[in-house]
């Protein structure tokens, strides 16, 4: 037909486009990750991958399993809600294999100050002290960190 002869080049272009589209669909079929779309527009395996990341803080229940004596002392004082690792740092390695990691001795000059240094933005009623409070003496000379009330035995 005349129209095919005159418009033949347009059909060739259309064929090129169609071939490109088919190629795209094939490549797409191969490359889209298999778990994509299972729960939504994302790779469902990402959820598992993120959930499998290593844990560094063991959580206070893990500490209490072995250190029930400390837990007894702590539960009687105002530091009861403070988690062990809040001061002692992340210790999941120690919790899984106690012999492999020895938790470091803490420096009360830095540690206690962070929470208890006087600051006007802290809530009223929260125990705060200023720098002259101890006259340069270490906090744990008078306060046992696990149960910090003055009547409790100090560490030093």
């Amino acid at each position, binding site marked *: 037909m005349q129209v095919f002869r*005159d418009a033949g080049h347009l059909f060739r272009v259309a064929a090129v486009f169609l071939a490109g589209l088919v190629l795209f669909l094939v490549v797409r079929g191969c490359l889209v990750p298999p778990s994509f779309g299972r729960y939504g527009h994302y790779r469902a395996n990402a959820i598992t991958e993120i959930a499998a990341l290593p844990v560094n803080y063991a959580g206070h229940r893990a500490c209490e399993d072995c250190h029930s004596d400390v837990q007894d002392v702590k539960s009687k004082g105002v530091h009861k809600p403070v988690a062990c690792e809040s001061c002692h740092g992340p210790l999941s390695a120690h919790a899984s294999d106690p012999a492999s990691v020895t938790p470091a001795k803490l420096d009360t000059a830095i540690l206690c100050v962070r929470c208890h240094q006087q600051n006007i933005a802290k809530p009223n009623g929260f125990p705060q002290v200023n720098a002259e409070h101890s006259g340069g003496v270490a906090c744990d000379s008078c306060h046992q960190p696990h149960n910090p009330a003055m009547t409790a035995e100090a560490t030093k």
Partner: protein
Amino acid sequence: MQIPVDGFMYPNEVELQWSVLIVLYPYITGLVAGAFILASLERVFQVQAVKPTYRLALLTALAFLLVAPMPLQLHLGHPERSFEMYLTPHTSSAMAMFGFVYLWYLLAVLVLEIWLDYRHDIVVLSHTTTGWRCLLYRMLTLGSTNISPRALHVDERAGWVITVIGIPSAFLLHGYVGFIFGSVKANPWWSSPLMPVVFLFSAMVSGIAVVMLLYMLLTAMRREPIDMRCVDTIAKYLFYTFIIDFSLEMLDLIHRIYEADESFRSLDFMVHTRLYFSHIVVQIVLGTVAPIVLLAITQVAKLTDLARKRVYVLSGCLTLIGIFAMRWNVVIGGQLFSKSFLGYTSYKMGFVAREGLLAAIILTILPFIFLWVLVKLLPPWPAKPSRARVASAD
């Protein structure tokens, strides 16, 4: 990375996310859209006066469109994963859908229209050249050498249809970039329904200016006389589009100042201090008001051809600088202030870095190199007979 902060910023906001490359990207796509709209003036709206720039405008659009993805690739943290936008595009994301708009515009509009317009020349060139050029042209013919008047008429009709489809496609191409910014509710400098419209009209202004300048430059290089009727018409359209663009930008500004919402104080301070030079001086005064005034003079006063040419070149250059400044003010400006409205940061632009100034300069020059190649392969104007042959005929 110690970036000085004035006031308070959320800690993660201090470092800018989108660099000068992301300023360059809307600038380049804007030139594409604008150049195409100019081309469509002749094809669809029958403005015969601008015909000499038709093919040049299309090639300019193609040269810039090919470079457009490059700043994006350099910016991505993982450019090797960029194809994921085509595999699993998130339909709620303007950025994802833009990948398809880009592909559509490149292939179904621009490449197709250029091919149809040049097909006759391509077939002729495939017969008259040798070596790799001949092979290239033969490939471009797609095996069809039918350049009979009827076939060419089919081409003409098809090209017209594509141009008609191409105009909203060009609007979509750059309007989308505006929407990418305008739809971010977290950023009050960007979030506005006017953003796509402002982007589009400033794109048209810059695209028309660049084609006008390129036409004048290339014609002068070819030692041909510049068609004054053509450039006068282009300048007229540039002027009208500029008026609309300026009105839109002023509307946005006045609206902000009047409503003075929670972000206003912070943004106002930013424009008066950190953005003063790029926004007030470069974008508004030098880049918008000055070209409008200059073009207005050419519309009302009777100037000589030479005087008009000079004014057009000056206005064109100022326009291109001004529109770049506009993109800078939107992209960089939108990241200089804190979303807490309590502080400001600064933009530390590297030079030789992956997203540095050098990369930006190279990417700005690259489209002109591409254009040079395209002009050599697909000459926009018929070759003039050489002087030597004319002389020997005497």
